[in-house]
């Protein structure tokens, strides 16, 4: 390790600098910069946010329209050799259906020119909890099995950087737990595991560093707890059903926990708050003070899209 590295820590395994990617008029990724090291990193964002495009660029499948993206210091697009140290499970479902699962993983091992490809394929298939002696064609595999065999071909050559695009789709809860444990094992071994997902709770279970991608931009990055807090603290519009909407609205306005309100009906109120935490603390005492019954409280913009929109605005 050079003195500079000793001072600043190990160099990042994946480094993106001002990366943009556009397809005609459509901007899929816009000026994204980040660096990723060993361990599990989640790429979180809604469908169409640009996660898959970023992963594809990391694996050399697509070229950035602007900026640079290196993996282990090399351009994966032009340096074929670095692909030997990258493993990827793409999002798309189709596989080489005329092969058996074993042949499919063995093919990957052989193309990576690793020693003992047959044994390596067996190990990889066992690691994803499939039967290495299963000779059925991939066309007969269920969705969960297809997801797992994709993971097996991604790790069969013991890559350093592993990019997994929505790898938990189609798995049952037990399989998800096993796969997440596998990601953690790989991360603990010093590998750089990048997992994309559009499911907030799923990413929470990775318990990892998170890059939030929304509308092609890097909306936030950091430890999952920081991101979660950021998401929890964003302005909210909340629908409240109560028998005394007017009185409750006045009290909440007086306490300064809402910035606006609208009476929807004789028992419904919609309020805007820029401090959801303070609002949550204040609403029950306010109702008690007015002797109002709280029948229902429901956030109107709690879907993931609105969370990401907010983060992009930040």
């Amino acid at each position: 390790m050079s003195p500079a590295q000793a001072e600043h820590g190990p160099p990042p395994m994946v480094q993106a600098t001002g990366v943009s990617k556009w397809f005609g008029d459509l901007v899929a990724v816009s000026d994204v910069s980040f660096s990723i090291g060993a361990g599990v990193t989640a790429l979180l964002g809604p469908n169409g946010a640009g996660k898959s495009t970023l992963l594809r660029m990391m694996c050399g499948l697509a070229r950035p329209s602007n900026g640079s993206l290196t993996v282990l210091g090399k351009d994966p697009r032009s340096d074929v050799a670095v692909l030997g140290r990258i493993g990827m499970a793409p999002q798309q479902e189709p596989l080489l259906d005329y092969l058996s699962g074993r042949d499919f993983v063995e093919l990957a091992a052989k193309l990576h020119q690793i020693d003992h490809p047959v044994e390596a394929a067996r190990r990889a298939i066992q690691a994803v909890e499939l039967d290495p002696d299963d000779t059925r064609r991939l066309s007969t595999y269920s969705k969960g099995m297809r997801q797992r065999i994709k993971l097996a071909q991604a790790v069969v050559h013991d890559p350093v950087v592993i990019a997994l695009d929505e790898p938990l789709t189609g798995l049952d809860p037990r399989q998800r737990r096993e796969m997440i444990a596998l990601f953690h094992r790989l991360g603990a071994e010093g590998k750089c595991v990048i997992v994309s997902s559009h499911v907030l709770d799923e990413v929470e279970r990775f318990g990892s560093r998170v890059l939030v991608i929304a509308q092609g931009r890097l909306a936030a990055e950091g430890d999952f707890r920081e991101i979660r807090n950021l998401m929890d603290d964003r302005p909210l519009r909340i629908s409240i059903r109560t028998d005394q909407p007017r009185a409750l609205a006045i009290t909440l306005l007086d306490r300064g926990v809402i910035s606006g309100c609208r009476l929807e009906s004789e028992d419904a109120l919609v309020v805007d708050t820029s401090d959801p935490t303070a609002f949550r603390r204040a609403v029950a005492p306010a109702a008690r003070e007015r002797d109002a019954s709280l029948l229902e409280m429901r956030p109107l913009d709690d879907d993931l899209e609105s969370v990401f929109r907010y983060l992009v605005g930040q």
Partner: protein
Amino acid sequence: MNPHIYRVVVRSQISPGRLLAWAGLSGVAILLGFVARAADDSVSFATQSMGTFGTNIFAPFIALTLGSAALGDLVEDRTLVYIWLRPVPRYSMATAAFAAVISVVGPIVVVVMTAAAAVTGVDDLLMATAAATALAVFAYSGLFLALGLRFKRSLLVGLGYIAIWELLMSRLGDWFARLSVRSYPMSILSDATGVEMRLADRSTLASYIVPVAVGLAGLAYTSWRLTRTEID
């Protein structure tokens, strides 16, 4: 050439439907051989038959169905990623796919057409048919391999190319004919038996060199395209 990719491509090309189509076309070729043998001017009829059916129809259509599918199908069903992601030089992938197409199309077309030529009983036609169809297979395989990677509906584009360029435009004049692949293998047949055929007036040297050059150009384009294309 990568042997693993070669095997995958060969395996992907063989399907029951295709086997049935190849068997049907092979039957027609052998039948033509018997018809030519029974014809009054069997040399002329046999040469015309081997040229018209073998190099104008059989070779290009079989090469089209397999060549365009070799990499084209992998692009279309988005499975090329499982080959492309590996540290294999792109020219090696292209060469493996090309070899796979040749090794399936070659035996079907060359063996069947040579057998058909043997059935005609015209001795001069035997080696000429083998050479002409082999060269046609080489040229069309390279051409359609590249086409499969370049166009989304490559089978339709290829059919359009065969029908419009090879079969129609090539008749418009000598310069058009020079740009038609089929005129070169047909010239080999014409040279061998002395039977004059339309378009079959290329020099012997050109008849051998041009189809090889076309096949290699298709292979080179495929290699280049694999390095440039973005994989979905």
